[in-house]
């Protein structure tokens, strides 16, 4: 039976069909839906782990125990996980282990662009690159087989256009004895204790394995030569193969499913059979460099940029410029839409608890706001513009401490570090310990909205639920106290003045201070309160409420007679009654609607949380 599936659904399906028993991961776009889809298969244990390194270690341990395991993460997650999978290449496992990492060419929802294929070469593990959903599913099985046969973790490298695109997939069954216990563990120190004297012995084997895998690559059906016109031979993998096929339907191709180690024999064969050899790959010249190192001339990044996506239109454009495609073959896009159309960038949702923090911070002068990744990064945008930095998860605390020891306070400026709750558990606890232990003086703030909101509302250790059911909740404030912070303040996110007071107190305190701003994300909270409205007789168009950046508060057509400025209007379809605007209105012109029932809306009593996630 064929079913249309996204790449992420197909990977989850592959995990099911190919006997995976343990799946771990940390959320991150575009990878998050893999684990979410795996939860439908009751045969598989799955968990959101605290971060990618923890997730990878858990999957490695499960594979040691003898269970087929996979771990999932977004592209930068691999940076966090890397310390774990390098050693697993040395130890091998007792069952297959697949590391699934989703790249983001074009940076749709990532802080940097990186080509994770380098990790395969760096850590010396084989890598598969699916290009559509069928391949995504099939490569899970193939990867686990390779992993077991060669006693090495395998990297399944997907990317946004594979993970979030959909195509038909042939479904299979799970032929697996789910009742069987794992084989008993037998101590084998030379294999599993990575002390130098034992690890060193494995080095030659690791190199030899790559050589053998490279030979195997020439015979693997997922690496195939497709002969066509001999003028142009194209090497491509992943979605780039499909894009290239669209542009060059008649060229000769080497389609690579395994891109490391490289199928060198097939590369030589294609090179010998065509006039011009071209490598079409997104991001770095990963294949191209290997081809060139073989002494084979080819074209690639001399034509294409090493950043962004290479969609069919891009391939057409660059190939026409390079003389590889007749210019008249390039589709000319018409220019119809005016260039000055208003943009539609994302904003904090109505009812978002982060709003009070950034409303207050926007007013504070001489404050360096060292923020982090999550929905709260929207505090960087209009109308707040209230952050100075955002880099990698946990850096909100780590870099804040760096500003302090870099003497920035001597300039008269203060420093505030901000992380979200999921980010705090992910990589914020160690920098907090660092501040405390080294006698730092930072003011650190956790915006605790009770979920990992940005990536689609996953659980984390601060919640009493897991991917499967009830879980043990770790209290953030208590954890900070246990880390040695003496000044710990909790404040209600929906108390705008209270948040301001907590921040000011924290900044004034000598020694490390820690503020937990508590208030649930609208999507996991209690639902809507009463809708609010503006009393137009009292509103004088002061525009203060617009500074909350709430999508529900808009300019009405009515101008105030004295000021000439538009009065505010609250869209009853969008308002969820968080009360923040009422608290800040100097004329008390805003309050709950008493009589009218809330109209049915596109968002209903709870907005649809089904689709849009990122980060």
């Amino acid at each position, binding site marked *: 039976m*064929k079913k*249309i599936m996204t790449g992420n659904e197909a990977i989850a399906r592959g995990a099911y069909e190919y006997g995976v028993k343990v799946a771990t991961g940390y959320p991150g*776009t*575009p990878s998050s839906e893999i684990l979410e889809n795996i939860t439908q298969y009751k045969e598989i244990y799955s968990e959101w782990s605290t971060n990618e390194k923890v997730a990878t270690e858990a999957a490695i341990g499960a594979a040691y125990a003898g269970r087929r395991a996979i771990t999932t993460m977004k592209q930068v997650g691999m940076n966090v996980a890397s310390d774990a999978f390098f050693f697993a290449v040395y130890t091998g496992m007792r069952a297959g282990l697949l590391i699934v990492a989703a790249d983001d060419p074009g940076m*749709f*929802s990532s802080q940097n662009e990186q080509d994770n294929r380098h990790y395969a070469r760096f850590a010396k593990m084989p890598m598969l690159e699916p290009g559509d959903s069928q391949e995504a599913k099939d490569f899970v099985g193939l990867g686990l087989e390779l992993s077991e046969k060669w006693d090495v973790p395998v990297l399944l490298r997907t990317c*946004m*256009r594979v993970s*979030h*695109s*959909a*195509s*038909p997939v042939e479904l299979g069954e799970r032929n697996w004895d789910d009742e069987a216990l794992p084989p008993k563990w037998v101590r084998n120190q030379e294999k599993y204790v990575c002390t130098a004297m034992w690890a060193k012995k494995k080095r030659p084997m690791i190199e030899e394995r790559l050589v053998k895998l490279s030979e195997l690559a020439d015979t693997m059906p997922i690496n195939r030569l497709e002969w066509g016109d001999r003028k142009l031979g194209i090497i491509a993998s992943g*979605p780039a193969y*499909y*894009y290239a*096929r*669209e542009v060059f339907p008649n060229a000769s191709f080497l389609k690579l499913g395994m891109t490391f180690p490289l199928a060198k024999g097939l590369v030589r064969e294609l090179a010998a059979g065509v006039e011009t050899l071209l490598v079409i790959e997104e991001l770095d010249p990963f294949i191209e460099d290997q081809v060139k190192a073989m002494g084979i001339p080819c074209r690639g990044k001399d034509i294409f940029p090493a950043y962004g996506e290479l*969609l*069919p*239109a891009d391939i057409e454009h660059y190939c026409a410029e390079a003389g590889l495609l007749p210019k008249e073959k390039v*589709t000319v*896009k*018409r*220019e*119809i*839409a*005016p260039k000055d*159309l*208003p*943009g*539609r*960038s*994302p*904003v*904090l*949702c109505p009812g978002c608890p982060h709003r009070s923090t950034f409303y207050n911070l926007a007013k504070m002068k001489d404050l360096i706001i060292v923020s982090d990744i999550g*929905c709260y990064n*929207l505090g960087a945008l*209009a*109308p707040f513009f209230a952050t100075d930095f955002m880099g990698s998860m946990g850096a909100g605390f780590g870099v804040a401490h760096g500003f302090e020891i870099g003497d920035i306070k001597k300039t008269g400026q203060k420093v505030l570090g901000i992380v979200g709750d999921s980010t705090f558990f992910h990589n914020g606890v160690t920098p907090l310990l660092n501040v405390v232990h080294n006698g730092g003086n930072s003011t650190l703030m956790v915006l605790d909205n009770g979920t990992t909101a940005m990536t689609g509302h996953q659980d984390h250790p601060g919640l009493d639920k897991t991917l499967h059911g009830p879980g043990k909740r770790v209290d953030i404030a208590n954890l900070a106290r246990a880390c040695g912070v003496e000044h710990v303040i909790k404040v209600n996110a929906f108390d705008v003045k209270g948040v301001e007071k907590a921040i000011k107190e924290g900044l004034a305190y000598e020694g490390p201070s820690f503020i937990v701003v508590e208030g649930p994300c609208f999507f996991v909270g209690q639902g809507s309160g009463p809708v609010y409205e503006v009393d137009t007789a009292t509103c004088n168009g002061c525009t203060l409420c*617009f500074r909350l*950046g709430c*999508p529900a508060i*808009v*300019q009405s057509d009515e101008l105030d007679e004295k000021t000439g400025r*538009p009065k505010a209007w609250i869209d009853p379809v969008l308002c969820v009654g968080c009360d923040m605007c009422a608290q800040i209105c100097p004329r008390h012109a805003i309050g709950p609607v008493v009589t009218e029932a809330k109209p*049915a*809306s*596109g*968002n*209903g009593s709870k*907005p*649809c*949380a*089904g*689709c*849009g*996630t*990122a980060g």
Partner: protein
Amino acid sequence: METMNFLITGVGGQGTVLASDIMAAVGVAAGYDVKKSDILGLSVRGGGVIGHVRWGEKVYSPIVPEGKADFLLAFELLEGMRWLDQLRPTGKVLINQQRILPVVVSSGLAEYPSDERIDAAVAVATPAYYKVPAIDLALELGTSKVLNVVLLGALSGLLDVAPEIWEQVLTERVPKKHTQTNLKAFHAGRDWMKGQL
């Protein structure tokens, strides 16, 4: 046959992703090879969204080639206008007649394009412009949540796929207790379109 290319655009939260899911499933049920791609981005936070769906004998890339959309299905006026460049001169545009103000507009930093500007731009792109009153039709059924299905119904009126196939896919894809409302929504959109032809 030549591959048929659909672009689906709107604002995060309007249900465009379910619409592209249904479009893909209908394509499969109608016997086509199908690929689709959604950019999910930060869409739930009120950003613009775009989805690509392609039906054909053999579809390689999930991306609608530049300037080759046969249908532009827009859930919102501004977003519809934004993607006009991608339409073939023979392409068709269906736009839900609804404005959702981006924050730059609601806070007074930018202006929403006027009806005249929108009409003029569409007229340059194609003579085939269908102003679907989808939001009104959905609200008549009691909920704007079925806006996406009304629009699909309207689109179905321009395609050569039996309504039974659409109905079957819808029944499979929407929650059981909402099946009837969604089927009604589908036919409301489809009937509206039939009335235009």
